[in-house]
Structure formats: structure tokens, C-alpha cells
């Protein structure tokens, strides 16, 4: 049971949506919360961010799809998902049992694919949409929209015309200048940004003399990428006015606070869910402890406090 805590306000607001606390989990690391609900009370989370969903089922990439590297992991799942029909019937139905915000991550191969999913979600119990234009593991679509400013501008503005919910554009770190992408998304009407997605990487299995992943490359996540992510959140916060959800290797409240102080209004826990399924709630408890110890009444005071 979580008691009402008037003394320490952990709530944040992103594009008009209020979150009870700034902690959610990173898309793709948590399914739709079903499996982790055996460990974590989903009611405690600021939001559940679902795994990417497309207009039709996607089979994803061949295995092996995951491997460990020092301080992190690589994945090349390839956005396997059951498609929007099953997702609405099963996953969104499940999430109705919980008092938490629901952010649906949307993926597609063409702009029309994205628009179809966005439209199907318009009357559903969904608080925000996170548009995945940054998955490094699928060959068509997705990343192609996230690495060119004009393509990102185009897809963002078209999605904004269709979407009934506020739109978060999830940015890729695999670009020369992330602020250029951030500005393009903001100019096209994005309500918020989330960053960073995984960093394109490779591991070679010297015993098999082969790539560790069947896809050859995969996305690096985990504590190894945190300093890169904090830097990119800071740069983006200096470049745009819309709110930012920060992520990349968050393992504890101290990590989350770095992102918040760099300019993130909320944070997401990704790969560390695999190391400890309770990471999200540990981060929430740790944030409150920090506020108490440092006499911070409102977590919003900390957002972007380091210039």
C-alpha cells in the first residue's frame, strides 16, 4: 500500500498528462506489464510503456536475439509483436486493471502503418503515444524516420494530425546531432520526446567465430550507455521547450536523478529490469528518500536544475 504523501510531491506533468511519479519502464523491456506484475505492483509506476505494436503481427528477427556485454546487453528482437488487434483485446484490457498511465509504443514500416495504429488507438484507454522511429534492428521503416530531420518532421506532423492522444517521439542516439532531430520533432508538433533508444553495436563470439547475434548488429543498452544518454538528454533539453523522458542504463535513484537534473521530466528503466525486476520501485523509493534527505518538497524543482 502506498500512502498519500503530501510532504514530498513526486508527480510530474508531461503535455497535460499528470503522472503520480516520474518513473516508468522502457518500451520492450517489460512487455505490457503482465509478466512483471508478478513482482511489481503496477499501480506504483508513473506509467507502463508497452512494447512496440504495429498494424499487423511481426515475427521479429532470427535467434540469438540477445547477448550480454560488459555493463550492458545487445538486443536485436526486431520488434516482434502480435499486432494491434490482439494488443487492444489482450494487453490494453489487462492494463485497465491498474491505476497507472498507459503509454503505447507504436512501430511501423511505412508512415501509413504508423497512422493505422495511431487511429486504431484513438478511442482506447491510452494516455499517450510513443512513436518508435529509432529501433536499430528492423530494416525498413522505424529507424529510417529517425535519422533524417526532414523524414522525422514529416512523420511527426502526419501522426499529430491523426492522433487523439499527446505524441512522444522516441529519438535515436545513432545520429550526428540529436538536437537537430529534437528540433525537427518539436517544430512538427511533437508534444514530448523520449531518449535515448539503444546504440547500434556488435559482439563477436570468438569461439564460434561468428556474430553473437543472428542479426549481426544489435542495440546496446544498460549501465554502459548511461553517460551518453545523460549527455544527450542535457543537449536536447537546451535545444527544445517540450518535455523529455530520459532513459539509458538507469539502475537506481541516483541514475534517475542525473537524468532529471539534466532536464528530463520523467525517466524510464530499461535493461535493468532484467537484472532486478524490482528496479522501478527501488528507483521510486530512492527518489523519495533523496527528496527527504535534501529537503526537496517537489521533484519538479529538480528538473533541469543543472545548467
Amino acid at each position: 500500500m502506498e500512502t498519500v504523501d503530501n510532504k514530498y510531491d513526486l508527480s510530474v506533468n508531461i503535455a497535460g498528462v499528470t503522472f503520480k511519479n516520474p518513473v516508468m519502464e522502457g518500451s520492450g523491456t517489460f512487455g505490457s506489464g503482465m509478466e512483471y506484475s508478478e513482482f511489481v505492483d503496477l499501480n506504483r509506476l508513473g506509467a507502463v510503456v508497452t512494447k512496440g505494436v504495429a498494424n499487423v503481427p511481426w515475427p521479429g528477427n532470427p535467434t540469438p536475439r540477445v547477448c550480454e556485454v560488459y555493463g550492458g546487453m545487445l538486443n536485436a528482437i526486431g520488434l516482434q509483436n502480435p499486432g494491434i488487434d490482439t494488443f487492444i483485446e489482450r494487453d490494453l484490457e489487462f492494463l485497465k486493471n491498474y491505476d497507472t498511465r498507459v503509454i503505447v509504443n507504436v512501430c511501423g514500416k511505412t508512415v501509413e502503418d504508423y497512422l493505422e495504429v495511431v487511429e486504431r488507438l484513438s478511442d482506447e484507454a491510452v494516455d499517450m503515444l510513443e512513436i518508435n522511429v529509432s529501433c536499430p534492428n528492423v530494416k525498413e521503416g522505424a529507424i529510417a524516420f529517425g535519422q533524417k530531420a526532414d523524414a522525422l518532421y514529416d512523420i511527426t506532423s502526419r501522426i499529430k494530425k491523426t492522433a487523439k492522444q499527446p505524441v512522444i517521439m522516441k529519438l535515436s542516439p545513432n545520429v550526428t546531432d540529436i538536437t537537430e532531430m529534437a528540433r525537427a520533432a518539436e517544430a512538427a508538433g511533437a508534444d514530448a520526446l523520449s531518449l535515448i533508444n539503444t546504440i547500434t553495436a556488435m559482439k563477436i563470439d570468438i569461439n564460434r567465430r561468428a556474430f553473437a547475434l543472428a542479426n549481426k548488429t544489435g542495440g546496446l543498452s544498460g549501465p554502459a550507455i548511461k553517460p551518453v544518454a545523460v549527455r544527450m538528454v542535457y543537449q536536447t533539453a537546451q535545444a527544445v521547450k517540450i518535455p523529455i523522458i530520459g532513459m539509458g542504463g538507469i539502475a537506481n535513484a541516483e541514475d534517475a536523478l542525473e537524468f532529471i537534473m539534466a532536464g528530463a521530466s520523467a525517466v524510464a528503466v530499461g535493461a535493468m529490469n532484467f537484472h532486478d525486476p524490482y528496479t522501478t520501485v527501488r528507483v521510486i523509493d530512492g527518489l523519495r528518500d533523496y527528496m527527504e534527505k535534501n529537503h526537496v518538497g517537489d521533484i519538479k524543482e529538480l528538473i533541469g536544475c543543472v545548467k
Partner: protein
Amino acid sequence: MGKIRETAKVISQEMLVKDIYSMWIETDIAKGSVPGQFISVYTKSEARLLPRPISICEIREDALRIVYRIAGAGTREFSTYKAGDSIDILGPLGNGFPVSEADNSRPVLIGGGIGIPPMLELAKQLKGDKTIVVGYRDADMFLDKELEKYGRLIIATDDGSVGTKGNVMDAMAKQDISGSVIYACGPAPMLRGVKAFSEEKGIEAYISMEERMACGVGACLGCVCRTKDTDDHSKVRNARVCKDGPVFKASDIDL
């Protein structure tokens, strides 16, 4: 019973043969465990992010036994744990073998290499007239003395130093083994052989699949295997080894 993540206590640990270790762990996970399930074991270093999935070898009321091979830095760390040390685990995971459903009058249990350990608890729980076929690289055998208490033990070794020279399928053919149902755990080529054998003889076979895992609980979709038909959860021809498996009917899997 649900899954438990806990810091458990090592009761004992011993090396069985080079690089193969046996560890007893005092844990509440034991209560809900069945043969063929596995646990996730976490290293003490955050630099090694992912849990190691290790099959359950034996189950007591308040303790589990794992028998595992040192395959890298993580399992090497586990091998240094001593009685009284703490160990971070999550389980029980996966579905396990269908001990109560199949025709277990004459079961054949097949284990290859580090696929042998789950066969011990299975052999203890099955009631019928059991044949247990195990394959090793060489004479560095493990669990063989314990397994032979529960059924007729057939041994194959790659180098021919003990039993039939070759793999478990060679031993099966040579001894003309048959039965009412097959349970198998081992490397993919062995499972392919088991699947072909079961189809040829018309015997139901349950195989325990292995794949690189991340979450271990069915959320990340890292460890999928290809199914014959569209899977109900994924809506594509992929099942999750960690959650829907690791045990599948051989006829349901594309190998």
C-alpha cells in the same frame, strides 16, 4: 504458486568433474517447482546484467539442486560460492515436463551433456519402467551413478571410452530402445535426432529447448523458438522458450 526472487543460501557445493558443479540451495522456490523447470541465477556484479538460466536437477521440500557447467565469467563466479554464501535467484521458471499427463508406463529419458541434470528429478518422479539414455564427451561422467538407481541406464560417449561410441541417438539405435513417451534435454542437433526418431516410431516426445535469454519471465521476447503453427501468445510462429517452454511437444516445434 507464483515466482519468487530471493537472496537464498548455498547449502553445499562440489565439483563433479572438470567444469561441472553441483550446488544445493535452500530456497522457498523449491515448494512450487517441478522437473524440467529452471531458475535464473544472478551474478553479484551489475556489470553482468543478465541472469543465467540453469535447470533444476533435484527438488527437496525446502531446497533445490542445480548442476551446471562453467561456460563463462558468470557461471565461474557461481562455482566459487561456498556453503553459507548468498545466491540471488528467481524461479521457478518455465513449464516443466508433463509428469502427470503423458503415458508414463515405459518412459525414455534422454539427456545430452549439460542437458542431463533435469533428467534426475524427472527420473525420481516418474513411476513407470524407465530407460535413461545419457551422452557425454568422454569418461568424465556425472550423475550417472545417481540416475542408474531409477532405471535402466544406457551411456554413449563421443570418444567411445564408455558405452556406445557416438551420441545418444547412436546408443538408442544400437540397443533398439523404445517406450511409451520420450523426454529429452540437450543440444539442438540431439533434439533434432529425438524429434525425427519420435516421428518415425510414432512415440510422443517432449523436448526441452535452449535459447539465449534476457528477462527469463516472458517479457522481452529474446528467447523464442519457431513453432509449427501460429502461437497463441505471439500471433506469429514464435513461442517463448522461457515462459511457454522450455518443454515443448517435439511435433509442435520446427527444428
